[in-house]
């Protein structure tokens, strides 16, 4: 029994790891620009697609240990590239406009990216499963095995969480981002280019989503609709944790990841509903989520 619980725990941590990557980007962007990015899941999908596509091209030429690094770099670069295009070109124009236009704009970007994926990579799922199989599985007791790659994803999630904490509290850029989120005018007045901070923050968020998509890809596939599906869970995370809070994104992704595992195991009919019921309950008592700020 105890090893089953251990299995649930690991599975929950696994979901939580990549959900955190998506939700963290969503929450960082919202924290500064106050825009809820409906296209954020599409950046996650871009990460998965670029990684799968690049590995399909060059995986034969490079030694297996390098795969893991290249997957992450490819996913991050792909999503960052899209971020560099859409923030200055589109998103910047709607800061401060009515929310319905902000949401509609990111919805439009989502639709466009979905079809660009179809145009570039075709209607069939892209897969590159070798990194997943290469590491094999480890025994977790009681005759149960768990793929080692799952632990890699979990470790990546925690590493990036640690990096984000360090970045936001200890580095200069992180502190400037936080100050711009707190007060845009004063940050501009003390001589920082707020426009470029917005762009950098968006690229950071996009990169996190891209890494999330890239590291999940070997255990799944890159396919159409991926960006729309993941967003549903990432939203639940930021609603529970509170929009704009990294701590909230971390705790929220753990709650959603664990709920999902328990839900699938014991209440498969209401798995998704269970997650959102928790979100609604949190909102009833804490309208801005656990760590949300107005």
């Amino acid at each position, binding site marked *: 029994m105890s090893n089953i619980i251990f299995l649930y725990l690991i599975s929950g941590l696994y979901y939580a790891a990549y959900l955190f990557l998506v939700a963290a980007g969503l929450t960082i962007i919202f924290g500064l620009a106050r825009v*809820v990015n*409906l296209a954020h899941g599409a950046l996650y999908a871009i990460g998965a697609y670029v990684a799968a596509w690049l590995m399909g091209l060059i995986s034969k030429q490079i030694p297996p240990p390098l795969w893991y690094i290249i997957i992450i770099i490819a996913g991050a670069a792909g999503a960052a590239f899209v971020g560099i295009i859409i923030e200055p070109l*589109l998103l910047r*124009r*709607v800061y401060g406009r009515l*929310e*319905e*236009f902000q*949401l*509609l*704009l990111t*919805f*439009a*970007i*989502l*639709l*466009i990216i*979905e*079809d*660009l994926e*179809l*145009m570039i990579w075709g209607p069939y799922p892209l897969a590159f499963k070798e990194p997943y199989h290469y590491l094999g599985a480890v025994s977790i007791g009681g005759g149960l095995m768990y793929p080692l790659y799952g632990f890699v994803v979990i470790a990546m999630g925690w590493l990036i969480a640690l990096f984000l904490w360090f970045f936001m509290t200890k580095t200069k850029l992180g502190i400037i981002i936080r100050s711009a989120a707190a007060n845009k005018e004063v940050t501009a007045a003390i001589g920082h280019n707020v426009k470029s901070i917005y762009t950098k923050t968006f690229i950071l968020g996009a990169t996190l989503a891209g890494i999330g998509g890239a590291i999940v890809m070997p255990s799944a596939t890159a396919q159409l609709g991926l960006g*729309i599906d993941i967003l*549903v869970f990432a*939203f*639940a995370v930021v*609603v529970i944790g509170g*929009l704009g809070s990294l701590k909230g994104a971390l705790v929220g992704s753990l709650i959603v990841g664990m709920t999902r595992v328990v839900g699938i195991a014991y209440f*498969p*009919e*209401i*798995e*998704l*509903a269970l997650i*959102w*019921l928790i*979100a*609604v309950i949190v*909102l*009833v008592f804490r*309208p*801005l989520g656990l760590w949300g700020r107005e």
Partner: protein
Amino acid sequence: MISRKGLISIIRKYPIYTLIIIILLTLPIYAPSFFVIQIAYGLIFGITGLAFNLLLGYTGLLSFGHAGFFAFGAYMMSLPIRHTGIVHTLEVYLAFAFITSAALGALLGLICARRTRIFFSILNLSFGLIIYSFFLKFWGFTGGADGTHVPTPPLLGMKFAVDKEYWMTHIYYYYILAAFFICLAIFWVIVNSNFGKTLQAIRDNEIRAQFTGIRIYRYRHIAYIISVAFTGLAGCLWAPLNGHTAPEIAWWTYSGDIVMLTILGGYQYFIGPVIGGLVFNVFKIYTIGYTVYWMLLLGIILLILIFFIPRGLVGLGISIYNRLTHKKGSSKG
């Protein structure tokens, strides 16, 4: 009753609307069946848009979950039929869907009527997704991803011995048109009543409205109930036209469609969502038929709307009309 003189003056004053009404009334005579059916869908989306816009345009609340309420209304027709095997006249289901949707709105409104802005949007998104997952996962009860068949119901207690295409294009089309005009009239009364004006006051300045003694949460709650009830009603009208209800219509991207058609028509105008519903549906169907990249095209049109015509098609029409009449005046003077 309106006198003949009054009617003529109305026609002179609103030539475009008169033309649209005449086209809608005579459409099945000359238009191909496919187009008539698409207009019928468009009218239903027009009702949905009116209900949605009571929140967005008049109360200032953007819901990203109305597809869930639309699907809820549709299932309120398909589920009773699935489980009893008896097909009553459609009005029974319309009444049932309206009442249950209102009850749903009353319940959910307890949670979300106190929230505004992005929190209201996301709460409604979550309600929509809970409804979606309920219809998807309880497959024994709802038919799961396959959905549930909806047979052709009697209308006003009458069964029609005609084939399905004729029924849809000639009989049910006029039924929907009548329902559409009734809803249009009801919403016209609502937004021009004291209640509607109060909603707009709350939208424009919540704090000032509160100071004048308005119980803003109660007003928002009632607006929310009306909106959900009529969205459910539209869903129930949609079910026999579609002949099938599946959970995918509750998925949040369809809520995006509802937001989009409302903005397309122009959410600052009463008639905006109606024009938006008609244009959006026809446009979407023909682009899907024409290209696989219809989402790309929709996205680009959405960008154009956001950046160049934020007041929608109705706003665009009005400004073009004003410019034309202004030019005429200036050339004379």
